[in-house]
């Protein structure tokens, strides 16, 4: 996926126009080697900011938050089987789950790729990557 089409959260998730959700390239770099992905249950309804997936590296577990309100319609079984996809292709094969958006306009309120990059630059060196 072209990151320019994605919208980003301050907690480093992205969501595509068709509702796919993943973690940013910055996030995968900070988390380092992803060894485990626990996606949410299909059918679960989530509110923006709900922790709904877990991504783990060798060293630590990271909660992945819902970017907007919606219902989980699919999960990426390939990424669950091969978690390294999140590192190799954070904006493509490494998506985690798909959301039926409660309102597509919610997505528009999130940061664009350019806005997210500015956000990262402003917060660089804050010592709290995720």
């Amino acid at each position: 996926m072209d990151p320019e089409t994605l919208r980003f959260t301050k907690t480093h998730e992205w969501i595509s126009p068709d509702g796919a959700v993943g973690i940013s390239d910055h996030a995968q770099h900070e988390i380092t080697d992803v060894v485990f992905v626990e996606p949410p249950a299909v059918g679960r309804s989530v509110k923006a900011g709900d922790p709904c997936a877990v991504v783990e590296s060798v060293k630590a577990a990271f909660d992945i938050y819902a970017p907007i309100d919606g219902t989980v319609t699919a999960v990426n079984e390939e990424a669950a089987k091969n978690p390294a996809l999140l590192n190799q292709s954070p904006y493509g094969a490494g998506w985690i789950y798909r959301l039926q958006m409660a309102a597509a306009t919610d997505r528009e309120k999130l940061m664009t790729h350019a806005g997210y990059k500015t956000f990262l630059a402003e917060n660089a060196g804050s010592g709290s990557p995720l």
Partner: protein
Amino acid sequence: MTSTTLRRTPFYFLHKTKGARLVEFAGWEMPVQFEGVMAEHRAVRQRAGVFDISHMGQVWVTGPGAQETLQRLVTNDVAALAPGRGSYGLLCREDGGVIDDLYVYRLAPDRFLVVVNASRVEVDVAWMQRHRGPDTELTEQLQPAALAVQGPGAASWIGRVSKDVLELKKNGVGEFSLWGREGVVARTGYTGEDGFEIFGPAGHVFPLYESLMKDDASSEVIAAGLGARDTLRLEMGYSLYGHELDEDHSPLEANLGWAISWNKGDFLGHAALRREKAAGSRRKLLAFRLRERGVPREKCGICLGDQPVGGVTSGTFSPSLNVGIALGYVDARFVQPSLKDFTIEIHGRAVAAQRVPLPFYKKTTS
């Protein structure tokens, strides 16, 4: 935790130029990883990696009374150590609680180097001073620096610096000239691989690391951080102070009975440990391998059916085995050979975990 100035090892700026990610560890600013934990872990298993272990305490115990002092302090038999040999042991309280785990190296009849955990140096030295016998001096190494070069390629690398070092057998130790400077080299480690640990003042050890880092085009030895050090030791089932070991746990509970010399004579903790040995321990450290996907972490609950029976002290994803592994204490009533199928609570989910013998990882001879 209040923010205090973190100590830096002599290699701090070299780590920074290598792109290390630095974290606080026991009051030190240490590299947790360079390239990545997985890559560094595999490099150590397949080739070689070098760890900065300058944060570890180096305590010299010297003088005509040094052997007697140590013999009373530690659980292992120091009198049985010939000069040029090292051995693992524990520093215990009178009640058997573990103050620290350590390595005692005998360099000469009346000269020992004791290497202790960074997090315990102050406590250890205070305890050792309190129980120091006559004619014994305790000296902390000034400007300490230390490196661990670990992996099947470690010997060929260090052989280029000093052929004499290759004469060392496992647990052997000696003083060698490396780049023309004296250093203590021991054939020991914390990874389960062949390797060497090099101790000395910063000025002596620094040129070695510098040369290693310059040589990296051959990528014979890569820089590795505390992250890989932890996954490597855990695959072997080695205890880490503050996790498996503390003052509330005894060496017997931690399955370290092999590091206790029962017949060497009295030592601190001897009576209490003897009583525990006779009566049986209240809990035991067990090893678990997950049957399902997931990564167990410290403090995850351990259950047998619906019954909580213990807790995880260290857990990780094993880079060599591609599965979650854990160590944890279990109530001794549930430690029976027939009981193998436990569960570990991970993110509120009971994940099937099998009790397994240690080590988790066994080297396949290729």
